[in-house]
């Protein structure tokens, strides 16, 4: 296991999110290290997705601040979060309907294009080459997430559930993010697929991309993550290395006390 770097990649300080009267997240502090696989766990409804939404700009927290790569990113628009290097997937897969797999993945590369309207219309060489380079990259990533080139022309939403998840990961990776946030990427998968995705997550990290992973399967979390944050009723219940955290009686109680 690597030693955590001195300054974290993403730091969330005292994040509070209220929906009307409900406090979904209360005063959460969290730091995701550079090159970490950081697990975010907790019972259903604990506020995990809400935290991920805060970290990607989808939800403005009622209180608290976010520092990414040394800069405060609190008030930015969602697309700015993505442009700074935070790429995500969704708990309920959100691929674009009526788009092929290749096209969907290329949408993730949006920020890496810069040609203006005229050079697009006149088919300038730079524009064509940028397009071609990204297509090549998209095929590489499809291969990387374990999809063959033959799915590239299929409409993304017609693929099997497991394949759609992989497309979502490829779509997130093509933006060359610094942090990949995955919301239950293993849900609904069989054991073989789960270990494939776990390997994939390790390879992502090996490329220098940190990962935030929301997951319910404790076996996998224990093996895969090098840091865990446990949420319960929107509050931080525990934070630390997996073995330590999972041995914590309070964490066990939270899981046993409520049906998962």
């Amino acid at each position: 296991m690597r030693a955590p770097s001195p300054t974290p990649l993403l730091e969330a300080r005292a994040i509070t999110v209220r929906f009307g009267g409900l406090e979904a997240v209360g005063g959460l502090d969290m730091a995701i290290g550079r090159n970490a696989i950081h697990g975010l766990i907790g019972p259903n409804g604990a506020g995990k997705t809400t935290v991920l939404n805060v970290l990607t700009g989808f939800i403005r927290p009622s209180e608290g601040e976010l520092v990414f790569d040394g800069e405060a990113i609190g008030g930015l628009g969602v697309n700015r979060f993505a442009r700074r290097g935070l790429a995500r997937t969704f708990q309920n897969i959100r691929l674009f309907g009526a788009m092929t797999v290749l096209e969907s993945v290329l949408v993730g590369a949006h920020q890496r294009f810069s040609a203006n309207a005229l050079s697009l219309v006149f088919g300038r060489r730079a524009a064509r080459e940028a397009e071609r380079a990204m297509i090549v990259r998209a095929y590489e990533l499809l291969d990387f997430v374990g999809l063959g080139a033959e799915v590239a022309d299929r409409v993304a939403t017609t693929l099997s559930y497991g394949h759609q998840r992989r497309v979502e990961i490829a779509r997130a990776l093509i933006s060359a993010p610094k942090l990949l946030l995955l919301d239950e990427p293993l849900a609904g998968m069989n054991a073989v697929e789960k270990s494939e995705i776990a390997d994939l997550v390790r390879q992502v990290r090996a490329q220098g991309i940190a990962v935030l992973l929301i997951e319910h399967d404790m076996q996998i979390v224990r093996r895969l993550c090098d840091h865990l944050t446990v949420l319960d009723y929107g509050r931080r219940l525990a934070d630390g290395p997996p073995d330590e955290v999972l041995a914590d009686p309070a964490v066990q109680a939270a899981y046993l006390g409520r049906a998962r």
Partner: protein
Amino acid sequence: MDYFGQLLANGLVLGAIYALTAVAFTLVYGVVRLVNFAFGELFMLGAFLTASLMLPEVRLIGVAVPMPGFSLPVAAAGAIALTALLGVLVDRIAYRPLRNAPRLAPLITSIAVSVVLQSLAQTIWGAEELRFPEFHLATLPPVVLFDSIYLSVMDLVVMATALAAMLGLSAFIARSSLGRAMRASAEDQMAATLVGIPVNRVVAAAFAIGSGFAALAGLLYAQTYGFAHSGMGFLPGLKALTAAVLGGIGSIPGAALGGLILGLVEALGAGYLPNGTAWKDAISFVLLVGLLYLRPQGLLGKPELNSAGRGSLLGGASDFGAVWLRAAFATFDGWLARAAAGGPRAALALLAFALLLGALVPSDYWLRILTMVVVYGMLASGLNVIVGFAGLLDLGFVAFWAVGSYLTSILFVLLLKDQFGVAPADIWWLLYLNLPLAGLVAAGFAVILGTPTLRLRGDYLAIMTLGFGEIVRVVAINWMDLTNGPMGIRGIPAPNLFGIALGSPRAQFFFALALAVLVVFAIARLVRSYVGRAWVAIREDEEAAEAMGVPTARYKLYAYAASGFVGGFVGVFYAHSQQYISPLNFSLFENILLLMLVVLGGLGTFVGPFVGALIWIVFLQLALDLPFVQAYPETRFALLGVVLVVLMVFRPQGLAASARVALTMSGARSKEAA
């Protein structure tokens, strides 16, 4: 003060009528989230039916039919009942099959239904006005308030009836079980289904009551003027929709409030603003646009109605209807898709075919028609950028077209010819300058109009853009110095190249074709790039697009700009090929027609707009050969409406849906990486 009092009284009468119609919109929207544009036509039918029932005899489709000659109250009750029945029927046929369809489908059918109803009314009752017989209340001397405010007895009747109807409706909703069910459905349809409220019955009731209210408003409105007319429902319908949105669509007190405010503002504006009567239609739409910008949910509405709507604009097939019909659509679609998949080669073959057609068609008459197909195909392509690719339902597109047409006409005729005496033939090159110039001006205009709409979604977006389109039309009519007003601009020179006039129908066809090649090529290049992918991503899932780093607001504006550019560009040619333009060329109906063409052909495809234009314009001409259509030309529009309803119900994705565009550059689909 007297003048003010009189205006106030007029405003209250008008407001009562708007309020009644606004209730119709709001009631149905609350229950099914549908803007039923057909209420404007039900409003008109209420008036026609009442007048017919009051007369001893009416000519229907040219045949004298004896009528009962009821008194006004009896005739009104009959008309309201008949219209309510019709409203339920419309819901059953045109909307119910589409409850789970993509959100554009019911909106299109509602527009189609209103086209059908209006042209049917014109066919049945004729294009002339139908006069109401004398009714004794109307002959009584006016009531004079404070010595100076004159109110006719009918005005008082209008206000009293409106008040009674509103109170009756509130009581119905508060007391009866059906009314309570209606309110529950309006609050939360999902929950209402879960607790066992029969939603279809509730919706039918909402349509019945709404249609009855529209009919009541229409007959009161017509009664104050003394006649019914087939076009009378259009503007009041839009105003009532405005009132409903103003008050917060879905809220009944809001509709009443919105109607009153709108009636008062309009009456006072007409009375106090310079040249106010001419501008009063613009006042309501300016109010609408301003309000949607500042407070989209209206005065008393709930903000969540301004939501993304039901998913994708296009997705989803109909699960309804005859298998053979669906199979036939699929075959035609597959055929077009194969043609589209041929890439550049198929496009060139299509172009060669068009060139051949232009060279060989002997008759000037058919060449003119083919030119219209190309022009409408281009315009529809421009609209397709914003609606089909970016998924923003724009009902104000004609404004961009108008900007292009007026820009070139004003420069050529009103400015250079009339002011400076420059002969158009000497400055033939200006046309070629105007094409891109008008494109840029219209694009700038589109961005200005698009900016306030960025926060709006779905139906609200459609209503706001519709408001813009109407404002532009009212300006074109009333800004006499700039546009020559309703007389329009005559004597626009035909296109000309190096002093050679291209006035012949054949030359114009080739000219149009050349422009079409440019337009389609430019759109294709943009769409098949990261820009087009961003547009489609926004159409399919705006939030996910944003999470992928797409600045969605900026890309929406790009879509407006691209669409506006095409509108302005084509508008220039349109003016020169027609040689005469007037505000009538740029009505909301034209926008609706363009939308229909795109939907008919298939949103988000390159061939779709042209397929739609070809089918519609050729159909218009062929239909003219039918004897019945010759006698009643308006029935063609009814047919268009019926075709659209059928298409929406059986095939909401359009004829050429599978000819969907590949969003990666052609040729760049590298297998080398694989």
